[in-house]
């Protein structure tokens, strides 16, 4: 793409694939669409408030929280964290592959990230069913109320993330649909889901 062509194209040409274009200019750039960052940063603040409220409630009943924590399977939490991190790793590499023009590789990596997300959901469902089987539900006590609500709303974000990754997959497969910004935006969102899980793992499972 020559300079003249670039100036002639409409201002929203960032929608379309322009590999190495921005990176050539300078190292500094915002990956993905700005609107996705509004979403991600806002979500971080909203979830931050949920977690802070969790901590405040915890101080008033810390013994109950600590005892209830014991009924969670820490190892399942660990495995899920590793699955989520791996998923993020795949998706991060998919973005790099896409930027380098390796669309097949990007597609493959996105699928791997997607499958890790599915595994995460399956493990989560198994974990929930074990807890419910032991008689711990939303109404058991304040700890389990938070446990189910926080992991539940996180799971909702995972499902939304899988839908977004599905859209990314669809766009990567068809040359006419490929948009670097979409791949980057989807990845940004997915990493945020990963990061929120890390906070949940630390606060709900590991805090003593």
């Amino acid at each position, binding site marked *: 793409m020559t300079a003249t062509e670039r100036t002639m194209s409409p201002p929203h040409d960032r929608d379309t694939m322009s590999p190495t274009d921005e990176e050539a200019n300078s190292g500094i750039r915002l990956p993905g669409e700005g609107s996705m960052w509004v979403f991600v940063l806002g979500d971080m603040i909203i979830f931050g408030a949920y977690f802070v409220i969790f901590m405040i409630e915890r101080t008033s009943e810390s013994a109950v929280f600590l005892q209830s924590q014991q009924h969670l399977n820490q190892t399942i939490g660990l495995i899920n964290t590793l699955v989520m991190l791996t998923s993020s790793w795949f*998706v*991060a*590499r998919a973005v790099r592959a896409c930027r380098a023009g390796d669309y097949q590789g990007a597609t493959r990596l996105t699928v791997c990230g997607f499958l890790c997300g599915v595994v995460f959901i399956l493990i989560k469902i198994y974990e929930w069913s074990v807890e419910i089987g032991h008689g711990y539900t939303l109404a058991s006590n304040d700890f389990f109320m938070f446990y189910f609500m926080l992991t539940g709303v996180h799971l909702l974000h995972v499902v939304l993330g899988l839908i977004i990754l599905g859209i990314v997959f669809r766009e990567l497969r068809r040359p006419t649909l490929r948009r670097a910004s979409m791949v980057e935006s989807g990845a940004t969102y997915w990493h945020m889901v990963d990061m929120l899980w890390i906070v949940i793992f630390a606060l709900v499972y590991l805090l003593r």
Partner: protein
Amino acid sequence: MKALINARLTLVWLVLCAVTIVSWWLGGTAEHHGHFVFSTPVTIGVLAIGLFKCRLIMQNFMEVRTAPRWLRLFTDIWLVAFWGAVLAIYLY
């Protein structure tokens, strides 16, 4: 170049997994005869690892490292404010 970037990503991923296992192990140390006990050092350790992991993900996976200054500032302020608030509430 591509291999180098991927090597960096892979290194980040390995570090993330490793510190996750460390924090899991840390959590397991705070017990007495099979019962969890309060432990401020363990909590501080877990929270520090949490902050570290969040920052690694944001900087490398979310590419905040090469993002405009306002985003770098915002994410770092969020990290400090959020994890600081959590620790402050815990210690209070």
